[in-house]
């Protein structure tokens, strides 16, 4: 059906949006003032009854949501560029930190929103662009968090002490063997790869490549182990973890670690399709969590790692200090700024990837794997890149999460979190970058601000029995939103244009699709399923039929 009339695309009159510069600025000013007033205790006290209204937790949550909507409107509305710039930067760089001075929960909330936004953007690559359903995405988040958490906490000293006491047969010799093994296997892998590029790969070359890979892994383990054993003498010096100066290095390392885990998980399972992939990624996500819960030496198991350090940036602290922030707020403000930069980078990478060759390859795979392969898209490689890219975003955000929380334990990385991120992607609109960010913001706001606000506001209302307090049924509310969204607007809040056409194509085209319906399928009679009989057969990304 999608190819019904390629020569005559449906002509739609271009919709003219009115210029809303004035409204945008007005909205920005009003919501900023409301936000600042409602988070300033002195002002509230002077306002009298109006202050009481603003103090109400539901109103407060709404004010925060309205304020964050600024950024959305700046993106959506047609307005002068200077206005958009002022609203976007002004609200994120000026008003929000200012309000965060009296209420750090705003900074915490914004960091959390952006962490989830980056996770959703990462998952969007895997699910939205490449069409690979991943239900264990939070595993990569955990990898990033633990990469930093283990090294920047007393755990590292403990690990060194353990190896110092139990060196086994490891020593300087092991290091040499490990290095040689790593070099030889890595070299042979490169050689075989080069050989395969020239000569068609044979079973023998494939096998030896695999063997070399295993050798490489063993070599790396040997090297790592011997380095740990050899440096165990400095266990005392590192009792509080490594120097915060390594933060920036680990920003890169956590990306790499997550990407490598993404590759390791992806290699065996990406041959699978559709729901097989879904259940297996779900399982592997649980495997990572259970490992974190059981490898007590490295992760402290269920007890969790604390305190996890953060970067120390003296110039930033003094800057924040002169701006009137308290010392205990420096780190949160720093992480807020960092996460803003990171999300910008992630977004940029996303947009560039989407427009690149690899982005088109992903979409081709999602739409029709076999056709894509026939057109020369290397399936495995493309899928692996999607997996690793998605994983790396989660890895870096995991590290920031660990630094923000100063505490990490396996509880933070359960299946529900994966589902949460997935629903952000779907709620916002799969494949649409602005959409998934909006999805992340909406879900996080709902979870951390609106529902608790509702709970607080209704806590001391005598006619609401606590058993039915809506805040205690967040799963119900959350589930209802998911179901309602899917039934009424399956393309998401801010859909990807292409995706909308796929979901609603029956509406813009000549309505011949009705004829294609089989027997009782029309019984539901709803708008979205107009051409369903045919799509069902064709539109199964990675389907098994």
């Amino acid at each position, binding site marked *: 059906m999608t190819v019904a009339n390629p020569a005559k695309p449906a002509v739609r009159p271009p919709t003219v949006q009115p210029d809303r510069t004035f409204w945008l600025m007005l909205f920005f000013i009003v919501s900023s003032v409301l936000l600042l007033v409602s988070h300033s205790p002195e002002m509230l006290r002077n306002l009298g009854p109006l202050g009481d209204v603003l103090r109400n937790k539901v109103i407060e949550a709404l004010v925060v949501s309205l304020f964050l909507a600024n950024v959305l409107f700046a993106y959506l509305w047609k307005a002068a560029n200077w206005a958009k710039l002022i609203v976007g930067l002004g609200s994120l760089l000026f008003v929000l930190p200012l309000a965060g001075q009296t209420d750090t929960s705003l900074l915490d909330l914004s960091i959390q929103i952006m962490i989830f936004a980056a996770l959703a953007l990462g998952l969007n690559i895997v*699910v939205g662009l490449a069409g690979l*359903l991943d239900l264990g995405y939070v595993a990569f988040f955990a990898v990033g968090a633990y990469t930093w958490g283990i090294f920047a906490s007393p755990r590292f000293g403990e690990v060194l002490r353990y190896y110092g006491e139990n060196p086994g047969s490891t020593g300087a010799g092991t290091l040499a063997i490990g290095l040689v093994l790593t070099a030889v296997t890595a070299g042979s892998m490169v050689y075989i790869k080069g050989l395969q590029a020239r000569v068609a790969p044979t079973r023998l070359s494939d096998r030896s490549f695999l063997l070399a890979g295993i050798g490489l892994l063993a070599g790396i383990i040997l090297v790592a182990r011997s380095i740990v054993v050899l440096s165990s003498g400095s266990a005392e010096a590192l009792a509080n973890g490594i120097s915060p100066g390594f933060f920036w290095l680990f920003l890169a390392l956590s990306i790499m670690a997550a990407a490598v885990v993404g590759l390791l998980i992806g290699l*065996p399972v990406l*041959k*699978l399709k*559709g*729901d*097989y992939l*879904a*259940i*297996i990624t*779900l*399982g*592997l996500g*649980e*495997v990572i969590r*259970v490992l974190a*819960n*059981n490898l007590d030496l490295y992760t402290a198991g269920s007890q969790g790692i604390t305190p996890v350090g953060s970067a120390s940036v003296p110039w930033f602290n003094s800057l924040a200090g002169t701006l009137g922030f308290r010392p205990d707020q420096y780190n949160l403000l720093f992480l807020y700024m960092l996460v803003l930069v990171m999300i910008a980078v992630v977004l940029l990478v996303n947009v560039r990837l989407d427009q690149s060759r690899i982005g088109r390859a992903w979409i081709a795979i999602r739409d029709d794997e*076999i056709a894509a392969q*026939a057109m020369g898209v290397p399936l495995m490689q493309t899928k692996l890149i999607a997996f690793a890219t998605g994983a790396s975003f989660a890895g870096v955000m995991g590290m920031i999460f660990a630094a923000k929380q100063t505490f990490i334990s396996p509880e933070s990385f359960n299946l529900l979190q994966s589902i949460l991120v*997935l*629903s952000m992607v*779907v709620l916002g609109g*799969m494949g649409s970058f602005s959409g998934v960010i909006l999805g992340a913001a909406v879900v996080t706001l709902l979870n951390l601000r609106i529902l608790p606000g509702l709970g607080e506001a209704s806590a001391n209302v005598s006619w609401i029995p606590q*058993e*039915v307090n809506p805040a205690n*049924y967040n*799963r*119900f509310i959350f*589930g*209802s*939103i*998911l*179901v309602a969204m*899917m*039934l009424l607007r*399956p393309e998401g809040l801010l859909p990807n244009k292409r995706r909308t056409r*796929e979901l609603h194509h029956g509406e813009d085209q000549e309505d011949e699709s009705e004829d294609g319906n*089989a*027997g*009782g*399928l029309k*019984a*539901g009679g*709803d708008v*979205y*399923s107009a*051409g*369903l*009989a045919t*799509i*069902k*057969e064709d*539109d*199964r*990304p990675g*389907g*098994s*039929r």
Partner: protein
Amino acid sequence: MELSVLLPFIVNVIVGGLILGFVYAIIALGYTMVYGVLQLINFAHSEVFITGAVVGFEIFRILQDSPMNGYLKLLLALMSAMVVSGLLNVLIERLAYRPLRGAPRLVPLITAIGVSLILQDVLRFLEGLQGRFDLTYTLPAGFGNKFCAAEGSSCAPLGNFLRSVGVDVQLKDVILVVVALVSLTVLNYVVNRTRLGKAIRAVSQDRVTAGLMGIDSNRMISATFLIGGALGGVSGVLFGIKFGTVNAYSGFDPGIIAFTAAVLGGIGSIPGAVLGGLLLGVIQNLIGVMNIFGDLLGIDNLGTIDASYSKIGPFIVLVLILIFKPTGLLGKSNVEKV
């Protein structure tokens, strides 16, 4: 350790795994049947199943003081759970999945997750109204006794023999296995020998062609959800009888494992789901006792694998099997149409 102690131990572990496996198998059937007709992971099935357990709890609770025969109570509990869970499943399909037919596959999947979350809280709310959270079954007298333990009863020799080889089961375990086998037989008959079953199979193979042959596919899908839900109800009651205590959130974990079982056996295949369920039950238990074997064989690394890993055992087995047989154990390898 001598063989005379070890053998009953191993038998015991495997029998325990098989009993657990029967519960998984029947839950897995609910997943696999729905998947067969709609290609949808019905995440809400774990709550449909736990709804059955809650209904069973209520029946046993209401009847706890009545002099009615225990097996009659059981029958009543099973029947009510089947009806409630079956209708609930049909209702879910009508309201949440049918309007989405034809939408990309992720859309109904998200709906299913949403429905699952809604049902969890609804169940908690309903039981919470009566001040309950953990629901503990009040089983009829004798269900918890050892199977054929009483000396002098006609089956005592059988009981003694079973115990001597390590099969130490309670009456409720035997009931569980019998009910599970009966439901499997009935399901097998319905699917393979009746017109309804034929129609369902036709729809699951090719909905459009089935429609052209005059099969009302919507009705068949509803019928599938009814049967799947009823099986969910049965498995819920069996789960409750076996483990005694359930709550609104306790369906999630067994649900995931049961779905894994369905995938392991080859999703869409009914014998596959049963095989997968039994296998995973046994595997889970064997992984839980790995450290004993590790100690016996003197392998240190094996000694660290204990019950803390039994939750992820099924997934690792799944990965290994799917690498070599990507469609599961009994799944048909589909030829892709281009």
